[in-house]
């Protein structure tokens, strides 16, 4: 099968890639661009470990075709920290011990960023509702929810 030429923006950098027509965005990121921070947990949109932000919305990258990245603006976990340091969410996850095995962590961080982008002051219930598309099997979510609430406070104080 002929590969498709795709021009896209990933973590602020314009990127050109060749993708197989049947290739998912997740495979494109992981196998084509070596951005392995997004994880495959189920490949059917139920675990959220592959979550990325695409044009301002969170998507399960396993359910998006690589070809659909044409002209899109994509943020992956690799784009969360800056040369100045970790994102407040990343710092809050560390300080709250909000990860155990860590495989779901990139997806949770991306979903949480998307939440705080649209709702900088969420309630516990809003955090739980927003993160319900991301499965964690280790933590029971307690420390994850606290970390997101802490990061929201931290970001508000920093603004």
């Amino acid at each position, binding site marked *: 099968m002929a590969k498709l030429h795709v021009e896209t923006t990933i973590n602020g950098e314009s990127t050109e890639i060749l993708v197989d027509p*049947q290739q998912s965005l997740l495979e494109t990121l*992981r*196998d084509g661009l*070596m*951005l*392995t*921070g*997004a*994880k*495959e*947990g*189920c*490949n*059917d949109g*139920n*675990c959220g*470990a592959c979550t990325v932000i695409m044009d301002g919305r969170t998507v399960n990258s396993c359910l998006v075709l690589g070809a659909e990245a044409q002209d899109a603006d994509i943020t*992956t*976990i*690799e784009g*969360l*920290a800056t040369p100045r340091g*970790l994102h407040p969410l*990343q710092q809050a*996850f*560390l*300080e*709250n*011990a909000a*990860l*155990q*095995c*860590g*495989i*779901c*962590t*990139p997806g949770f*961080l991306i979903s949480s960023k998307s939440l705080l982008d649209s709702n900088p002051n969420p309630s*516990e219930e809003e*955090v*739980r*509702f927003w*993160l*319900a*598309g*991301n*499965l*964690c*099997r*280790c*933590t*029971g*979510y*307690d*420390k*994850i*929810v606290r970390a997101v609430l802490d990061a929201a406070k931290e970001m508000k104080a920093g603004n």
Partner: protein
Amino acid sequence: MATTTTVEQKTTEKVIGTRPIRHDGVDKVTGRAIYGADINLPKMLHVKILRSPHAHARIVSIDTKQALDIPGVKAVITGEDLPEPPSQMQNLGEGAANLRFLSDNAMARTKALYKGHAVAAVAATELYIAEEALSAIKVTWEILPAVLDTESAMAEGAPLVHDDLPQRPMEGDQAPPPNVARYFRFNIGDTQQAFEESDTVVEREFRTQMVHQGYIEPQTATALWKEDESLTIWCSSQGHFNVRDQTSNILQIPVSSIKVIPLEIGGGFGGKIGSTIYPVISLLSKKAGVPVKYSMTRAEVFEGTGPGSGTHMRVKIGAMKTGKITAVDVSLSYEAGAYPGSSVASGCQNMFSPYVIENAFIEGFDVIVNKPKTAAYRAPGTPQAAYAGESIIDEVAESIGMDPIDFRLLNVAEEDDSRVDGTKHRVIGAKETLEAIKNHPHYKSPLNGPNQGRGVAIGYWGNAGMTSSCSLIVNGDGTVNLVEGSVDIGGTRTAIAMHAAEVLGIPAEDIHPVVADTESVGMTSITAGSRTAFASGWAAYEAAQGVLKELIERAATVFETTPDQVVHEDGTFRSVSDNDKKLTFKELAGRLQRVGGPVIGQATITPRGVGTAFGADIVDVEVDPETGKVQVLRVTAAQDVGRAIHPSYVEGQIQGGVAQGIGWALNEEYVFNDEGVMQNPGFLDYRMPTSLDLPMIEAVLVEKRNPGHPYGARGVGEVPIVPVMASVANAVYRATGVRYQALPMSPGNIIAGLTQKDH
């Protein structure tokens, strides 16, 4: 919020009990950490496995010729490519297994014994080519009748899963029922007389379904078989030494020819201890001459790896009006899956271990059925039995009108009391754990609605020790490299490093821990049995003691005195006779080159003194009588942790164990059709708890020190799941008036129970 209850007075430790940020944290929040599937090697091929569509079927023939002809297909193997293994036992850490069965489970030779049993494997240049090749493999099947639950498997005349299953006679030379691989029995006192003398006797039957550990990272591995017959495996397992030894045994190649490189692991919970995939991908790499990578799909994880046993349990209990338990009579039947080896023995030993029971008859049947071979799942075998035991305890307490915690406290085991298997408890905190929930404000708080209920339960788990190794290297700037062999699933690198930091008197951050491959550190057993912080931490403690002894000698040289004239306090070495002569750890490290060269320490330990663990929960639920949905409103989970090395990660173990228990109680189950085909092999239909399903989970750390560990630690990972299903069931009973004696208490089953009650 989490709270800590210290039973004995605190010591002066500076690092143990603090909450440093984990050393691998930045890698794991930035996406840099390399997990099993994140590795890519030049010329690497991709693997797909053909799996049996039938629960029980004879392989008449397999034709792989057409698959091999597909461009891009580089290697195909079937069961015939695996060497014939000798019939010998392989220690898997949490249970042993016959090598023949391990090999057969990796790939069926003559019969497929469950839906999902591997029968052939393909390596190709692209994943989709490998997938296409699977459909070109022609298998001729002779479908056989399947047995799908313990009762039908044990019935007279049941179809036999194994034609040649070795069966030992039961008591009195009685032949065991069909498909029973092992039979256990504990028998103490005189149960018959005790029941006759009891004021109350309750007898119930309980059923639970097969459940999965539900780790988010599918099983995955990469293998490279090189021209010199050496083999390298990259994997995310619960123990790379175990992977090495198991692969060596199944493929019958020397241990020294295999190097296993541990990558980060995305959850295991017992399910990634043994695995069928390593010999398969190794042989594919051997045939293809290049590296091959295999990652399971989620459906393969459900159907082709080891879940936790479904069970059928009968329990009878007697008690006096005073609350004293008189006797128990228990029969547990656990699904082993397609090969022998369920965790039924653990259920038999542990289910009544929180109590003193003088008369007990407990038997267990390990029953082979045409389902995936079960594996360990967090306190393997015990949560099911505890669900039955703690449900019936709750009912007996109610029948004599006693508070359920008071009833448990009246019967609770303490040091030197015997368990039903005859073992005496060492220093334990069962009583303190029960008191922690009894005295917690949660237990005194009111419920707020007509369909709400509160349940309690306690659970026991024995924990493990096994073997751990550790090396320490002191760097010139006073930092220390720590090399250990325990795969880190939940922050154990840091807990281990904290042991060394405490001994050396330096901050945990000055230690740099690394999980080394099988060629770079001494043999270390699996990350399982709640043993890692306990035993590998202890290995780090011993290695640090060696470093400290050497550093004191070096300081003596600098101080121009003898080692007995040097003391070490808070990271400073000081001369006893001359107070002006002192060196910090950093200063001494900087001088090591001049007084004998670098200092390293190492230790390999197989600790005794494992501290057993108890956990007790209070759970509040609300049951919607219209929909049958059970909402968990509040959970308080107290646990005797001995000494919390890193309290945040101890709380995390408790919260995670509770969450898994709630999933098991309310929703999770393998649903099979009559042909033994799983109907829900995905996360949409095998429904694990989401953030919206759970409340905050309050962990109460009870610290009754374990005298068998330098800092008093007990294993903490497994016991938190043990009491959960019972505490949820007891809460649901108080909300509905129905005692649910089958899991899960999913909406349909709740409605069925409510409907039955009304008629």
